[in-house]
């Protein structure tokens, strides 16, 4: 991760934000909810709080705009630049701007939220059946008032569930008319208008009068985009007109004819050849939630990350079940500290020359209903370990995991460490019992929780939790909610935000570390997600943001996008044995 020069950050934790205007692409409620969820991404892992205000100067002012929008950093039309934001501070600092020449969605295509009707504001269901015909957009069929509507289930004929689509005939956004719909025709500047217009404005937003005469009444509002609204082109926001004529041919749907990039477009009048009015048809669009979460990272003091899977990576990529990456968590906690944990901390001091095997650091206070912590004196005399024993003679390892930035290789009461920061090669052998008194000689798996730094060890159906010098356990893994089918845990993958995947046999569970219970809906089959790796892996661990599955002398490395990008030798590639 990176912070801005001088570690720019807010000097208070209770931040305010204000949405200055809304994109016509989405219902206002959808945008508000997306921004709220985007701020929650950061408040979940820090002491920060975010409150929306509706007037006055907020810490983080949010606006939509296109091209030059008032800050000297113009946007660039559809695609390319999506948004930008300024680091913490007064005035424009901390603000976030979104390019409204983009199609803002939740990342998987248009979100058409209905109003009125009998579906309580449910989204349109495309396609839907009406009077035996299938429709993939809002229609006015079946009505005489021309109001576009849609079914909110797959079949209106069957379910009779419907709602009205965003349309200037139903309501307007902003302006000074409290959402009143447009009145057509209306007079503006002596001219009569039968549709929304951008005339009179330089920001490209479409508006209309909400009385028949703007010159006289000065009452207006901004037009919501219809589901067939085009993006970019020279008619941003205007609805497609079907059928339309292009190069003498008639088209009743969007086409890529006339283009080399395959993008779908349509005319916004009935004849492109004469009027040359056009725009791009809606595509998957960009997730306002994901882009906002990224931009708010900047507003809080994070610069771009080099980790491809991190939220703060500069390029956009849609992910379905978003999880904040450990790199993002480390960055934001570097600035603002943990949730209920200690104050913001400066970067950890450079470790001493000889990195000694450290038991875990003190974890933060935990809210789990843990039994009384106990500090166990070692029960049996620890087995003396010959420090000259060589990791390279081992055929495999009981467990492998990263603790305090160093890979640990455990085998029969011994362990070795390998630091990615130091090229000092393998350190050890060290005694497990010296570092973690009370642990058995043979362990099956281990992981360090990213947030609290506590280290969990598993052996058979038991587990231990080390937090600084104190240890809790052994306890049965059934306390975590893991059933009898799991005879042993073979590995763990930290997933950020206090979740860890625990692997056993051909299944895995998702553990909520804070409450120390596995989430509902687990176990799941490993093969469903982690396709292409050995299902009976002996070790599973996270290292440098990639997933490692080891069996025999080999490892399979997988990216967080679940692609196996390398298969190699544990000994020669990871341990770097000669």
């Amino acid at each position, binding site marked *: 991760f990176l912070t801005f020069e001088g570690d720019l950050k807010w000097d208070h934790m209770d931040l305010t934000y204000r949405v200055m205007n809304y994109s016509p692409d989405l219902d206002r409620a959808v945008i508000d909810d997306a921004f709220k969820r985007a701020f929650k991404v950061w408040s979940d892992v820090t002491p920060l709080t975010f409150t929306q205000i509706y007037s006055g100067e907020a810490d983080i002012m949010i606006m939509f705009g296109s091209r030059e929008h008032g800050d000297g950093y113009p*946007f660039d*039309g559809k695609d390319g630049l999506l948004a*930008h934001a300024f680091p913490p501070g007064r005035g424009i600092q901390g603000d976030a701007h979104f390019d409204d020449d983009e199609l803002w969605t939740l990342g998987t295509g248009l979100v058409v939220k209905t109003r009125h009707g009998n579906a309580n504001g449910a989204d349109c269901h495309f396609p839907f059946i009406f009077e035996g015909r299938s429709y993939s957009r809002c229609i006015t069929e079946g009505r005489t008032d021309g109001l576009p509507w849609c079914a909110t289930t797959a079949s209106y004929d069957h379910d009779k569930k419907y709602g009205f689509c965003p349309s200037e005939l139903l309501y307007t956004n902003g302006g000074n008319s409290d959402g009143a719909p447009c009145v057509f025709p209306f007079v503006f500047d002596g001219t009569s208008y039968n549709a929304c217009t951008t005339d009179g404005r330089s920001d490209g937003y479409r508006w209309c009068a909400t009385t028949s005469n703007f010159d006289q009444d000065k009452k207006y509002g901004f037009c919501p985009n219809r589901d067939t609204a085009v993006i970019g082109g*020279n008619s941003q926001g205007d609805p497609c007109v079907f059928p339309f004529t292009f*190069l003498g041919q008639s088209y009743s749907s969007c086409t890529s004819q006339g*283009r080399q990039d395959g993008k779908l477009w349509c005319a916004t009048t009935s004849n492109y050849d004469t009027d*040359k009015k*056009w725009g791009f048809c809606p595509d998957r669009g960009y997730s306002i939630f994901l882009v906002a979460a990224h931009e708010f990272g900047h507003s809080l003091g994070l610069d771009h990350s080099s980790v491809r899977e991190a939220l703060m990576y500069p390029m956009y990529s849609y992910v379905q079940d978003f999880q904040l990456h450990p790199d993002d968590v480390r960055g934001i906690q570097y600035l603002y500290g943990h949730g209920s944990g200690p104050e913001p901390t400066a970067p950890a001091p450079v470790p001493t020359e000889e990195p000694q095997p450290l038991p875990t650091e003190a974890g933060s206070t935990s809210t789990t209903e843990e039994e009384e912590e106990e500090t166990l004196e070692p029960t049996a005399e620890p087995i003396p370990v010959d420090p000259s024993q060589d990791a390279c003679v081992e055929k495999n390892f009981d467990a492998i995991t990263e603790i305090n930035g160093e890979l640990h290789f455990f085998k029969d009461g011994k362990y070795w460490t390998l630091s990615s920061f130091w090229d000092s090669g393998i350190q050890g052998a060290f005694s497990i019992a010296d570092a973690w008194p009370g642990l058995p000689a043979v362990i099956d798996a281990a992981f360090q929780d990213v947030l609290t730094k506590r280290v969990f060890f598993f052996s058979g159906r038991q587990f231990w939790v080390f937090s600084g010098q104190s240890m809790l356990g052994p306890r049965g893994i059934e306390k975590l909610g893991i059933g009898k089918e799991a005879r042993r845990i073979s590995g763990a993958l930290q997933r950020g935000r206090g979740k860890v995947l625990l692997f056993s046999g051909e299944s895995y569970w998702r553990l909520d570390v804070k409450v120390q219970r596995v989430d509902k809906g687990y176990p799941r089959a490993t093969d469903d997600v982690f396709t292409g790796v050995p299902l009976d892996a002996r070790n599973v661990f996270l290292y440098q943001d990639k997933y490692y599955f080891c069996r025999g002398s080999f490892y399979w490395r997988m990216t967080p996008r679940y692609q196996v990008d390398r298969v190699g030798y544990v000994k020669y590639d990871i341990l770097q044995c000669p």
Partner: protein
Amino acid sequence: PLQSKPQAVVTFPGELVSGLSDLELAENYLLRFGYTTAVEARTGSKRVSLAKALRKMQKKLGLEETGELDATTLEAMRAPRCGVPDIGT
């Protein structure tokens, strides 16, 4: 069925047709996102400074550091992204 006649390609009015060459696109990108400064872009030997800036960008974005304007790098330059520079203020 294949188009009976060659597909006509139309220049659409109001479209930001980036008539930029790949090299111009790259120079604009590297300047805009802080991988090179206007001064460097003007002075110094173009080739050396371009390769150096490309390598810096490829490292930052986790691409293979070739110092060349290869397909992967061009694709990354065309990908939708945040407008905040990757290097500098």
